[in-house]
């Protein structure tokens, strides 16, 4: 299965209620797969092609505010368009899933893979103080597995969750273990589980209002403090990462998604040459594995981040790594994917010969 298809199948099986999207390369297969699969017949799930990414993200707002499991998928320029809506979703504390298959930018850029949306998704992107939970799969299996996990996190914290991937993983074909079909929640179940949902005011409760607005500055500050508390809780409890050969490593490559896959090959080549390379792969880009980077940096000689960008995640690595070791960045841009040999060469030049 292709990564994009695995993602789409996982969405149906996770018991999602609605997908709202707008076509954009390299992830249009998600909506195509969903439309072809007729999820309205399989589970009653709604799939709607909206008039724009702006409309899509606001459709998520409407659906999420009713306690429904909703999602969209897009690619970098489309995500830029959604940022206003994402800010509203975070401000109104609405759960939803947003998949971003990153491409090279800026502007229309290219349809080839990129990883330059790190800043716009892990640092906010829209206006106001908020964070998104950002998960970066690096295999087709993870494209499948993280759908349900993301929905669970979104509802647990009432916050949007982003599955951050790229065209390479979306198009890549791998074997996938597929889970069972989860039932969609009934209206009664939603009323029970999510008492905040706007499903119609019944005599037993006050009306529900979903809004991010409060014109009273002190109440608005209180709301912000509440959000910050929630983000702190997420940072404490939801960090995910993977370590490969870090125990005996002299040099660590920090990379996520496609770059992590390529770096694995670089690690193998390096180790054959006698370079003790390990890989640290953040799975959650936010919350970022700060403590783990710190601990690791205290026992190695150097860290290299590999990203398909001019160096975005490297800022977070530098912020948390020990200042006693060099933290360098290697990246390609414009849709160019770095090769394993390039990466090994960079490590040799920076840390061994240097």
């Amino acid at each position, binding site marked *: 299965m292709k990564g994009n298809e695995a993602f789409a199948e996982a969405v149906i099986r996770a018991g999602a209620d609605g997908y709202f999207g707008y076509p954009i390369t390299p992830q249009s297969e998600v909506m195509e797969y969903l439309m072809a699969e007729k999820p309205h017949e399989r589970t009653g799930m709604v799939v709607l092609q909206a*008039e724009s990414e702006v409309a899509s993200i606001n459709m998520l707002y409407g659906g999420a*505010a009713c306690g429904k499991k909703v999602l969209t998928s897009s690619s970098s320029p489309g995500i830029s368009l959604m940022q206003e809506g994402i800010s509203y979703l975070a401000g109104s504390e609405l759960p939803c899933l947003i998949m971003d298959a990153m491409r090279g930018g800026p502007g229309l850029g290219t349809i080839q893979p990129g990883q330059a949306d790190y800043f716009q998704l892990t640092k906010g992107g829209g206006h106001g103080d908020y964070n998104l939970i950002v998960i970066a799969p690096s295999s087709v299996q993870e494209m499948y597995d993280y759908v349900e996990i993301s929905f669970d996190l979104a509802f647990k914290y009432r916050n949007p969750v982003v599955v951050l991937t790229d065209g390479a993983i979306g198009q890549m074909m791998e074997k996938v273990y597929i889970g069972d079909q989860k039932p969609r929640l009934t209206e009664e179940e939603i009323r029970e589980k999510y008492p905040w949902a706007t499903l119609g005011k019944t005599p037993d409760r006050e009306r529900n209002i*979903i809004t991010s607005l409060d014109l009273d500055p002190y109440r608005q500050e209180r709301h912000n403090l509440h959000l910050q508390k929630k983000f702190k809780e997420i940072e404490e409890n939801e960090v995910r990462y993977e370590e490969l050969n870090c125990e005996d490593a002299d040099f660590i490559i920090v990379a996520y998604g496609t770059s992590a896959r390529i770096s694995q090959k670089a690690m193998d080549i390096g180790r054959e040459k006698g370079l003790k390379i390990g890989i640290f792969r953040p799975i959650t880009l936010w919350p970022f594995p700060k403590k783990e980077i710190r601990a690791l940096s205290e026992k190695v000689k150097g860290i290299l981040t590999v990203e398909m960008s001019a160096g975005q995640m490297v800022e977070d690595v530098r912020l948390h790594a020990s200042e006693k070791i060099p933290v360098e960045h290697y990246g390609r841009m414009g849709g160019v994917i770095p090769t394993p040999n390039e990466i090994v060469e960079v490590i040799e030049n920076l840390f061994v010969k240097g």
Partner: protein
Amino acid sequence: MSDTITKEQIFKPENIVYKKTDLMTDNVLSYCPGCGHGTTHRILMEVIDEMGLQSETIGIAPVGCSVLAYDFMNVDMQQAAHGRAPALATAIKRLLPNKTVFSYQGDGDLAAIGTAETIHACNRGENFTTIFINNGIYGMTGGQMAPTTLEGMKSSTSPYGREWHAMGHPLKMTELVARLPGTYYVTRQAVHTPAAVRKAKKAIRKAIELQQQKVGMTFVEVVSNCNSGWKMTPVNANKWMVENMFPFYPLGDIKVDGKLVKEV
């Protein structure tokens, strides 16, 4: 004294000629005295109340003067980003087809920043009701030119009057959406006199009833005044509205049962 009538004697059910609907909260309206929002809120809530739909209704508040509509309407409400109410309403109605859903939007929200969402929701024939308040100006931000501002009309961003060569023509959004196959009932009303209020309420009732039949978009424009934005007294604002707004935005049904009843 035996001939004094007590309060208890007056407040008998049979003596009550008017009672505020429970679907309007007791919060003091944030609207300027004389503004049409309050009346439109009330008749919309009366319709939902009379039809027994409170527990099945979800409303969308826009950005604009009526951003706080949820403070006054005692139904479940969502507050949308500027112009995006039709996208929210679309999703709600698709996910919960049997709910009663309305979007309540002003002219800046619906006819400027939200034009795309409005046109496409209408064109898809989404089964919700749009309440469109048109007062030809941006009220909340302090009286700037709106897409619906009349030619020659002064606003804070057209201080010498709207001049179409530079500022474009006023947009008749309601006539525009009436031409789309997805709209089923399109009408233009006002709430400046008791007779107009009764008519407008009937139109809203019809729109909500048609929504239950899932026949497509039901769209009710309410031409209103903005006495503070127009810098007039409420009485003069209504007079000015009748003399200037109504000739350009004529009242009455535009599309009934999916058929145009007026040349647009």
